């Protein structure tokens, strides 16, 4: 662990809470981006990043100094993302009712009469890749390929076996290749 981080944590635990801003500053964009990659939603990403830093502050005394601080933050963020996605899924399920279906039908009719102008870059390229991956595949791919963690570290962070990480990673990379080839053939 970085000596500077250790010093800052000791300072915060001693009562100098202002030092927390210095501690999390190097990770603020990384955690936000990770949250965005996991959820595909900027507002959710902001919520997750905020909650991650708040929890990190609240439970700083629980932090194990033999563990990497960055990995600790990543773990909190991943757990938070999982919770938010679960909550969204539950909310979406509850929303689907008859009124919603009728409203959608009405909208579709209107759209057929007055077609909207084409919006070429409505979703970013990254989103178009990530939305085809399951949550576990996304987690594994992001941690291994984008965050540069090893298979073992990824497994310990996600609390699963190395074998599971390898299987999901293999699937995710295959899906990425298929999507890339499709885009290439479409001339995108």
């Amino acid at each position, binding site marked *: 662990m970085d000596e500077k981080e250790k010093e800052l944590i000791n300072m*915060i*635990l001693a009562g100098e*809470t202002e030092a*927390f*801003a210095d501690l999390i500053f190097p990770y*603020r*964009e990384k955690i*936000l*981006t990770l949250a*965005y*990659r996991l959820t595909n939603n*900027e507002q959710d*990403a*902001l919520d997750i*990043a*905020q909650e991650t*830093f*708040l929890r990190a*502050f*609240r*439970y*700083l*005394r*629980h932090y194990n100094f033999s563990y990497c601080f960055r990995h600790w933050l990543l773990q909190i963020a991943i757990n938070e993302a999982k919770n938010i996605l679960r909550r969204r899924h539950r909310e979406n399920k509850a929303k689907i009712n008859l009124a919603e279906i009728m409203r959608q039908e009405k909208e579709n009719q209107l759209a057929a009469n007055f077609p909207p102008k084409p919006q070429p870059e409505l979703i*970013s*390229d*990254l989103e178009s*890749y990530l939305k085809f991956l399951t949550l576990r595949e996304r987690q594994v791919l992001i941690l*291994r*390929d*984008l965050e540069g963690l090893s*298979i073992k570290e990824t497994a310990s962070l996600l609390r699963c076996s190395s074998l599971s990480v*390898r299987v999901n*990673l*293999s*699937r*995710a*990379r*295959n899906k*990425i*290749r298929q*999507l*890339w*080839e499709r885009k290439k053939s479409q001339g995108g």
Partner: protein
Amino acid sequence: MNCRQARKLMPLYAGSDLRPHLEKRLKAHLASCSQCQQELDSLKMALASFKEMAQKKELQWPDLCWANLMEQIKQEKIKSVPFFVANKRLALAFSLMILLFGIILINLPREKWKWFPLSSVTQQKMKETPAKEISPAFEEKAIAEKKEAPLLFKDKSLSSEIPAPGKIKKKEAASFVASLKEKEKLSGAIPAEAPDKITINLFLPETGIQVIWILHKDFDWQGAIK
């Protein structure tokens, strides 16, 4: 290794996550199969473009959100770690010790529970409840030493009739006790004849169930009336 097997291993090989012995076999296959090599190249390119795309898209914190977060953190308090969370091994040892102690306690015979502090209430109750039957030998001893009146006598006025030690011989004590019992019966403290049967009625108004127990004085454990 055939092409099908090679295709399965390619995604891991592309990110150098393949185990060394499999990597060796895959490399040997790739050297001889141009189609698989092409597939591997396209996989590597796809991953590289994905990584590049991901690196480009990096979100920035809106200043207001960051300021809000810092404000929230100022109001937060760092939670303290509970003792047993901080010392997990100690917690485990302690819980095992309690479990072991419990098992030993359950397996102890009932008589040995007396020393256990929890049973002190039970012991107190046992002391307070009067003995229903006292052996003649105990009665003799109690009279001779002139301690408190034997608990046998419910009518306390009879207790004053107990003579002081030395005034009555030990042999006469039994007959003296018998005469006192007789007097007690006459005074009504003990009913002259106990009923042969006792009936207990239990009625539950909530459910309307009525339970009747009829207990016979000569009923023995084998279920037969003598």
